[in-house]
């Protein structure tokens, strides 16, 4: 009928044809929604309620995607070190009269995914969720992964809608860096769940509200939660209203799939079931390349070390022994052989180019002759070997290939008159022993421990190992290093509030620790990932994190 009418009027026919064409184009656009599917190494979706679990993989996938923090990491470059940049706070400064107080100016016009405004009240609410035990939203399950990453933060106070004051236990210039770990969840959305929750008491209601929030989360990040099946998949869609227009995602949907088994991840990629996998099976790398998939890797702020015991009687108290061990390892051989190129040789916690590297005088490299000479000066030789014992695990997060790598060190160090005994224990047990220290019976006589660490911020990269007050049970100074020089340098770095001067103080601390050969520095992980050739625009920064926003996918 309509077509018959149109047939009589060419103009009407044209209008109808245009409408059909527009509908067809619209339909085409709808069906052409771009989806990026990623196979994660995690066995479960990291927690989605704001403070993810599962370490930095959690922050990578369910933290930085759906949420923002007051400060953020610059993830835009593969070459430059990743540094802290403004996030939901545009500027910050410490109070000149009281260095335990910081003023943070908040970004104007930011909204949570549920439409409620981000403001100073939201910041105070999010600090209280992990620090104020009598706050309704206080959640013990989020405390561990958060409070430990901002160890000096005490409280937050609203000054005005866009200004907030944060207070620390002691003057601490690291606070802006630590705050990258505190993600801002929507108080309004949580309150809605709390009001609707049933429970015997406020605590039960709060737990129910967080459980509901985790299934229907709301942050300010570039991705919004669209679907969640626990342990199976998380679907995120792009946030078109994201405050940073340059970081509005290029793909419409991001699907995150837990695949803990490396071969399963690799098969999923090769069969086209996913577009991107984290940590593909090392044995499959040549095949992945041969089939036209792309491999990415870059130096991560991660260190694979031996941490030495400095208790009385430890053989590592002799600096010549510590330096000899560092000079006796052919790291390039380890890289090219055992690890198929997937490591960066470590010459410290930070490599040249990093603002906290400094200028150590002790150059860590492979020099067997110099190592042997140092050992002979220390009283050892071909007929008098030094027995040392290292505790390690057979596997574990960030441990790379702990047993084969330790066996490689065992053989390498044997050439410099070390007799290395390896004590292999289960990963979680090793992790627990790490905080108990070298004095504890669980050390089982070991005078070195092999636990890898993330070096994203100064506290985790250096302070917890070098400051004497960080000895067990307080933190991870496993070997009981007690050197006034380090204590003074830590204090200086913590109390230097100009960012450039603070970085210089941290560089001084790092250089001193390398000169003191406080670790056997071996490798940095490189976070390998493989992708379909359809994936474009990916940049792998020198970080544990990546930015999914610029990634696009070809049809």
């Amino acid at each position, binding site marked *: 009928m309509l077509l018959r009418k149109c047939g009589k009027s060419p103009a009407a026919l044209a209008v109808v044809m245009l409408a059909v064409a527009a509908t067809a184009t619209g339909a085409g656009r709808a069906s052409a929604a771009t989806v990026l599917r990623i*196979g994660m190494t995690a*066995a*479960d979706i990291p*927690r989605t*309620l704001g403070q993810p*679990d599962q*370490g930095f993989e959690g922050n990578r996938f369910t933290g930085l995607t759906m949420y923002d923090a007051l400060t953020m990491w610059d993830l835009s470059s593969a070459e430059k070190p990743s540094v802290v940049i403004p996030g939901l706070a545009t500027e910050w400064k410490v109070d000149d009269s009281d260095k335990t107080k910081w003023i943070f100016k908040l970004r104007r016009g930011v909204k949570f995914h549920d439409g409620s405004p981000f403001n100073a009240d939201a910041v105070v609410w999010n600090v209280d969720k992990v620090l104020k035990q009598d706050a309704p939203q206080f959640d*013990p*399950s989020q*405390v*561990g*992964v958060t*409070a*430990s*990453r901002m*160890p000096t933060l005490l409280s937050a106070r609203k000054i005005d809608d866009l200004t907030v004051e944060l207070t620390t236990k002691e003057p601490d210039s690291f606070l802006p860096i630590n705050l990258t770990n505190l993600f801002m969840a929507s108080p309004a959305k949580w309150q809605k769940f709390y009001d609707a929750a049933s429970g015997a008491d406020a605590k039960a209601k709060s*737990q129910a509200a*967080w*459980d509901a929030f*985790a299934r229907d989360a709301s942050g300010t990040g570039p991705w919004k939660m669209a*679907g969640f*099946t*626990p*342990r*199976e*998949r998380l679907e995120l869609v792009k946030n078109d209203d994201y405050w940073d227009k340059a970081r509005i995602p290029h793909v419409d949907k991001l699907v995150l*799939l*837990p*695949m*803990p*088994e490396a*071969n*399963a991840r690799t*098969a*999923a990629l*090769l*069969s*086209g*079931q996913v577009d991107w996998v984290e940590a593909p099976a090392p044995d499959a790398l040549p095949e992945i390349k041969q089939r036209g998939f792309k491999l990415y890797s870059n130096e991560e702020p991660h260190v694979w070390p031996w941490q030495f015991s400095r208790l009385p009687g430890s053989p590592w108290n002799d600096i010549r022994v510590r330096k000899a061990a560092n000079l006796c390892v052919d790291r390039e051989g380890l890289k090219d052989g055992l690890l198929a190129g997937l490591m960066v040789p470590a010459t410290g916690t930070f490599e040249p180019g990093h603002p906290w590297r400094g200028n150590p005088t002790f150059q860590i490299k492979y020099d067997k002759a110099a190592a042997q000479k140092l050992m002979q000066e220390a009283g050892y030789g071909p007929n008098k070997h030094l027995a040392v014992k290292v505790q390690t695990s057979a596997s574990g997060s960030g441990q790379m290939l702990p047993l084969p790598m330790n066996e490689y060190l065992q053989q390498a160090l044997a050439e410099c008159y070390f007799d290395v005994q390896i004590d292999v224990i*289960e990963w*979680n*047990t090793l*992790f*627990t022993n*790490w*905080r108990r220290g070298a004095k504890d019976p669980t050390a089982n006589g070991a005078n070195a421990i092999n*636990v890898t660490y993330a070096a994203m911020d100064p506290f*985790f990269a250096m302070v*917890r190992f070098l400051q004497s007050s960080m000895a067990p*049970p*307080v*933190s*991870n100074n496993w070997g009981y290093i007690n050197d006034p020089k380090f204590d003074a340098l830590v204090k200086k770095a913590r109390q230097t509030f100009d960012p450039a001067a603070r970085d210089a103080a941290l560089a001084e601390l790092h250089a001193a620790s390398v000169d003191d050969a406080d670790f056997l520095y071996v490798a940095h992980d490189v976070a390998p990932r493989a992708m379909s050739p359809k994936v474009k625009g990916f940049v792998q920064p020198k970080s544990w994190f990546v930015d999914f926003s610029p990634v696009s996918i070809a049809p």
Partner: protein
Amino acid sequence: MLLYVTRRIVYVIPIVICVALVCFLLVHITPGDPLVAVLPADASQELANQLRAAYGFDRPLPVQFGLWLWRAVNGDLGNSIATGRPVLAEVIRAVGNTVTLAIAAAAIGFSLGLLFGLIAGYFRDTWVDKLATGFAIAGVSVPHYWLGMVLVIIFSVELNWLPAVGAGPGGSGAWSWDWEHFRYLILPAITTSVIPMGIVTRTVRALTGDILSQDFVEALRAKGLRELDVFKHVIKNAAPTALAVMGLQLGYMLGGSILIETVFSWPGSGLLLNSAIFQRDLPLLQGTILVLALFFVILNLLVDIAQAAIDPRIKRG
């Protein structure tokens, strides 16, 4: 019969309490910190103590066990430490997925096992027997996780016929029995079925051979029964033992396979256990083990009752 069933159910109660105690103790006596999932090693001691108290791990073990058992009896297995989600809901979802996989695998494994076993037993010592026995030996000998990987390489990576991992295009939550979802089940079900197929084949072959050599079979033949009717008697006599073996195998499959479910990222109880072990998530681990152990207990109970129903001699004993 009623008395027999009642007696068997009463026997189950002490078994369940022992199972609960063993699974509680097993996960608590292993070294390591139960809060490792939510407490990084770099956390302060003060924070560790605060969380230990918040989760109740500072209480004596008997108190922890008593509270856990009381809540479990009331249908509350607690909340996962790592995710904060209720353990019961996690376990029910995972067990549901494992049951789906187990039923599919049982359908394949038991039907092939019965077929091969009967044929091999009936044609004992012929090439048919050797062929069927060969299948059975291969089924129980081949490592199933290896077979799973090989099937994935052939049918997913090379031929691109079937998906390599997962439980449906939208996950198991959107599962339906159509081809789009069923194709996700094929490879894990075949992989899971090979061991029960082999075991059932061997059991049924041995039973069939034994029964065929008994006097009453000769008597039946002498009475002029057709071979098909004789064979029905053989099947009926073999059924109680075959049923017991299949029940046990079904129990194993319902328990989930950590290896197979991990290889195929199948979100069942095996993958859940794997995750709970690596995250040292004690409430989840305890809850999953308890539910799986109860599965075995209940399944054994049902098999006992079914055997008694089929063979009246059992309930008299």
